[in-house]
């Protein structure tokens, strides 16, 4: 995937210089495209801005090679299959999803594929049973788009290790079916196991149970959330922040977290 950077060079200068940059670029993060995906290019761009290499993945590709040897996968936002049946319900049965479910959920524990599902990606992960619960239509019934404050409740997952525990971040939120729901027993288990990764702060935008914005699986390699970190990675195109208009880049930590872990050789 090539594209013209919007702001000169998309890659920031990092403190480690060339060597660190080339190390990061060796980490390959796959971004899945379904019919109706919307934010796949944004997610790929976020990976590149964080210093990694973004790899296009196609929903209909079959077999283990469909994953193209990537080190991690992002399932982006959008309206795959037009949200027909239920959001994410048809994407779940895509051939590529079978490979992702196998690599993320049932491979040996030492070699689990890190997967991040954003918005529709989160919905696909719940439909795939990689994450528990489901999403209902927002309790107020309207599509909502706002800069949303979140608290990072768990910074030990593959996708949150560059944040401090309890850190508050602001990233865009935009959805119609964002009300997270699960039975009380499941919610209690998620809380007890530290698997509530993000909680809405200030305002619960959709009626989600216990203000849950994002969760992880038991091993912390699979994370899903409704808000969009990939839209908060580049000054000039992010949420409002204290440092200026549209200058929020709080979402970048998702992508640097997984890259740091991959490069750190902990996988």
């Amino acid at each position: 995937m090539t594209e013209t950077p919007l702001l000169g060079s998309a890659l920031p200068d990092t403190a480690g210089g060339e060597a660190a940059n080339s190390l990061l670029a060796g980490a390959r993060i796959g971004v899945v495209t379904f019919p109706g995906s919307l934010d796949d290019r944004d997610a790929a761009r976020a990976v590149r801005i964080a210093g990694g290499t973004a790899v296009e993945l196609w929903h209909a590709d079959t077999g283990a090679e469909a994953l193209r040897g990537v080190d991690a996968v992002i399932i982006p936002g959008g309206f795959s299959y037009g949200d027909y049946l239920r959001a994410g319900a048809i994407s779940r049965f895509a051939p590529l999803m079978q490979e992702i479910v196998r690599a993320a959920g049932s491979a040996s524990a030492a070699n689990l594929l890190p997967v991040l599902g954003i918005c529709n990606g989160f919905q696909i992960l719940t439909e795939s049973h990689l994450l528990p619960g489901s999403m209902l239509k927002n309790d107020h019934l309207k599509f909502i788009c706002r800069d949303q404050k979140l608290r990072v409740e768990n910074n030990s997952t593959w996708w949150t290790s560059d944040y401090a525990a309890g850190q508050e971040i602001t990233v865009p939120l935009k959805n119609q079916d964002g009300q997270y729901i699960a039975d009380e027993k499941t919610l209690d288990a998620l809380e007890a196991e530290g698997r509530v990764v993000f909680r809405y702060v200030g305002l619960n935008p959709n009626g989600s149970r216990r203000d849950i914005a994002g969760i992880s699986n038991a091993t912390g390699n699979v994370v899903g959330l409704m808000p969009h970190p990939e839209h908060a990675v580049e000054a000039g195109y992010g949420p409002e922040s204290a440092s200026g208009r549209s200058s929020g880049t709080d979402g970048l930590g998702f992508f640097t977290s997984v890259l740091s872990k991959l490069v750190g050789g902990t996988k």
Partner: protein
Amino acid sequence: MPRIVVDVMPKPEILDPQGKAIVAALPRLGFTGFSSVRQGKRFELTVDGDVTPEILQQAREAAEKMLSNPVIEDVVNVEVVAD
């Protein structure tokens, strides 16, 4: 050709946001006799030929595994309708 009808409803304990919106709108048209609405889905699966027990079983499995999400919905009816 015969069809298999599958009806799916939101679980009783789940507040149905769409049903809530509908019940709020009914009185605006003068329909004042209804205290609640729940909105579900009806699927019609057309079968080429006879509905064998195996095909009916396939429909039941499809209803549980794909047409509904057991976290939020129940399959409330699977029946054969002959034309």
